[in-house]
């Protein structure tokens, strides 16, 4: 029986902040890193090695395995795999869902282990674990002391970043809370439906942690992006009902005015078998990209219709855009029981630049 539910995750830019560590702190960390790494690999000088570059999370083999994090160094072009275990001498956990860098910490969401691992971005050494967080999906830093974590079971868990504990839970007015986007003092959250179906986006005040609105957008809202005009774009995948195919609905790309909380534009996909996934933007936030039926499509934020042809004719497990190079990162999980790879694409001509050997089932990115 195949009970593993495969979930698609999309990426977004991380809020990257320079390391606040002073010289003393750096020296201390270097000393600790030297101690902890002497057993493993003496050539790995990890201190500061991860501050600038790309983190790629690898979900890991289903069932019994552990996920990993890979690091891509833009300058050298080298990939370092399994950096969490190397730094902490223990596996990360089962099904690594996503990674978010906030305030010089990386928050790694480990879905099936119901936890978030917190590490220093500089050396990936663990600084804490947020345990018992249900079915966690995505983390977002709100302010220095507070973060939000979506959980399919309960909504949004408010995380106290000072002691890495859950301080409260916000019911999002929907089910299966997935991706979030911060606009001003409000966080918008996609109510995907989890293992069922939902069709709403909710907004939450980051000052009061209270639900401010719930808006109908379309079936299975899965990914969110904010454009250069400050508008919220929502990609709805549509319903895929395998037991009753007649219930299938096509996906939608929806634009929401975050101030009035009204839907301004709905772009419908044509066929009930069109179930788009992932929604990312370029660095200028003038273009949106999504995956559909074996291709990656580009939409201008001022467009009023969906494109008919793709910009990269390949299927990816997960996509991301590197704001530094502007390249599309597209991952391939191969047979899901071996190391996958991430191919980098030049979006101006759709050609492959190179490919990176990463871990098992590469699923999420953080560009720093």
């Amino acid at each position, binding site marked *: 029986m*195949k009970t593993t539910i495969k979930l698609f995750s999309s990426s977004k830019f991380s809020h990257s902040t320079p390391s606040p560590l002073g010289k003393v702190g750096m020296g201390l960390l270097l000393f600790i890193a030297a101690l902890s790494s002497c057993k493993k690999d003496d050539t790995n000088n990890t201190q500061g090695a991860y501050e600038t570059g790309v983190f790629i999370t690898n979900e890991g083999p289903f069932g019994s395995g552990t996920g990993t994090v890979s690091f891509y160094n833009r300058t050298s072009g080298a990939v370092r795999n399994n950096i969490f275990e190397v730094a902490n001498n223990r*596996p990360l956990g089962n099904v690594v869902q996503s990674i978010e860098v906030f305030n010089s910490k990386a928050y790694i969401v480990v879905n099936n282990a119901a936890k978030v691992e917190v590490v220093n971005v500089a050396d990936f050494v663990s600084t804490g674990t947020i345990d018992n967080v249900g079915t966690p999906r995505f983390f977002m830093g709100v302010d220095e002391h507070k973060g939000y974590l979506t959980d399919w079971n309960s909504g949004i868990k408010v995380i106290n970043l000072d002691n890495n504990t859950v301080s409260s839970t916000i019911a999002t007015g929907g089910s299966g809370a997935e991706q979030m986007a911060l606009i001003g003092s409000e966080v918008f959250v996609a109510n995907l439906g989890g293992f069922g179906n939902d069709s709403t986006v909710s907004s939450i005040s980051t000052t009061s942690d209270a639900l401010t609105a719930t808006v109908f957008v379309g079936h299975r809202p899965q990914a969110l992006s904010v454009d250069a005009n400050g508008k919220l774009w929502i990609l709805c995948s549509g319903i895929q009902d*395998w037991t009753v195919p007649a219930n299938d609905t096509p996906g939608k790309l929806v634009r929401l005015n975050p101030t009035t909380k009204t839907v301004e534009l709905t772009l419908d996909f044509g066929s009930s078998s069109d179930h788009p996934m992932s929604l990312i933007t370029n660095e200028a936030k003038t273009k949106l990209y999504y995956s559909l039926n074996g291709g990656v499509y580009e939409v201008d934020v001022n467009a009023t219709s969906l494109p008919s042809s793709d910009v990269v004719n390949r*299927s990816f497990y997960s996509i991301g855009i590197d704001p530094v190079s502007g390249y599309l990162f597209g991952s391939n999980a191969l*047979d899901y029981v071996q190391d996958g790879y991430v191919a980098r694409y030049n979006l101006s001509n759709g050609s492959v630049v190179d490919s990176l050997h990463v871990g098992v089932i590469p699923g999420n990115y953080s560009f720093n």
Partner: protein
Amino acid sequence: MSGLSKISLSFVSTFCSFCVSFGRLFLVVAVCIVCACHAFAQKLNPDSVYKLPEVNIPENRLNDFGMGLSISKIDRKKIDASHLLNLSEVISENSSIFLKTYGQGSLATIAIRGTGPAHTGLFWNGININPPNLGLSDFALIPAALINTAEIQLGSSASLYGSGVIGGAVHLNSKPEFKRVTDISVTGMAGSFGLYEGSGYGIFSNAKWYSRVAAYYRQCENNFPFINKGKSGSPEEKLVSADYFSYGGTAEVHRLFKNNFIVSLHLWHTYTHRNLPPAMTSSDNGEQQSDSSFRFLLEAKKMFAKSTLKTKVAWLNEHQRYDNETISLHEKLNTQGVISEAEYATQLFGKAKLNIGINYTFYSADVKEYQKNQTRNQGAAFLSFLYPFTKINWKATINLRQELVEGYAIPFTPSLGMEGKVWKFISARANISRSYRVPTMNERFWQPGGNPDLKPESGWNAEAGLFSSSADGTKLFTPSFSVTGFSSLINNWIMWQPLSASPNIWTPVNLQKVWARGLEANVGLTYKKNTIESGINAFYSYTLSTIVETAVSLENSVGKQLIYVPQHNVNAVFSFRWKSISFSYRQAYTGERFTTSDNNQSLPGYTIGNIVLNYDLKLNKMGIGFGFRINNIWNTSYQTLAYRPMPGRNFSVSLVFKCSGVNVFKCSRARVLK
């Protein structure tokens, strides 16, 4: 010293808990049995055992026509003496076969000769009991208490038994003996981590009737401590949510009529409820599963002077329930099978034998994801021919089988096998055969992903080997050995792969070609003198099972070993018996297993030791046995599957009451004599 005292201390505490919590119930049962035995023994004089001429009950196809195949038999006596819990443990203790297990009592699947779990047939009196939705069985769900004899056949016998017998087959058989016997055995077992099992069987037979009943109940807390390598600082933790309970029974009745006509009825029911523990890298999801099996088989055999006609019809029902509260997943799977078979065997010229038969099978599966109740009809015709070259002491067989399955083109399946004497006590054997596997109903119908365009997997298998013929048993030392080389090529091997257009949907495809080859060796030496019997027996297998062809994008898997197939597996047993005391020590080694298809990650090999001590006290026709078992005596910390904890050193004690040789069917005997 401290290790030893630890052992004895744990033993004492285990034994005490056994006495306190289990003793009372057990005592009641035992007293009843002893009283009953005593009463029968008084009524009858066991010396006056009345013998009718024995009927020659025909063997099954495997033993008659499986020439050149490697078959080993595990009988009830061996199972009784080993105090094991389920078929998975029985097989791994008596062979060098690797079973992939999620932990004690948890899902255990078999992989023989470098093939997959769906490539081994599990047969119950000749009926394939692998359910049609999965095409494979969980060997932890077959309790040792209900097994009469188990035969392990390595390599393909698809020409005899059809789909899915590529790597090998396990046959659970029972064979009636129409002679006056009463044999009752009741066992109580208690072990570490809250293990309690009560089981028993009884054989009641005479010249006309043979009946055997067996039943068991088991529960286990399964909360063993382990080092959690998935957590910071590798703390010692107790396994949670791994408890289970299980019960069941079998019954069979055979009636021999005057004109050599036998009618047999077999019933099987088992139920197991398990909580599914998390891996070290996961949190507890509150997963639970229950499995229930009903099996019914009616057989009729008519033996003529030189031929036999056999017919059978079986009804199989498997019901599985899976619940995962965390992700609100609730599954109910229900499958049925009706299997009917008729075969006619006859002797031809010069002791040649011919067997022809037909099979009709109907499967039905009620699985939500199939969108509707799905069914499958299949039929087969088969022929076997055995020719003995009596002058040179060789036998050769040809087996042919053609199966017809709704929706699939099944390859014609022949095999050729031979075996015979080559020099003194050394014999040789060889077999070449074709094999195939029809896609399971999940592979065909599961939505999303089910693929109606799948082709059956098909392959060719060849093996050859040398083995020692059975010794006369009069010598002090008796050596034995067998060595086999094998090679199998399996085409169209089905793998679930993500659809390229939408990678969150998986679909089974005829993806790869696999070449499995290797070597199996078995050496043994027994010593027998007066009241002393001692022996060593070692199994070794070397298995290379590599991907020859696969999808272009998976080039990193080409030439690599299949995941979870150890290259080396060793199992060595030393046993010693003096009068009524017996002792055995077993050491097993399982080699490195790759966990990714590019062979970039692996689990280290491990070695485990077990001890079994038995003391049997015979009192006239009654017997009391005391068994003591230590598993994992060196307290090895190991993983069979990545991040699935396995128990360290643990114990079990068993108390057995037996009575045998007396006849309870006094009335029927009187009628016979009339």
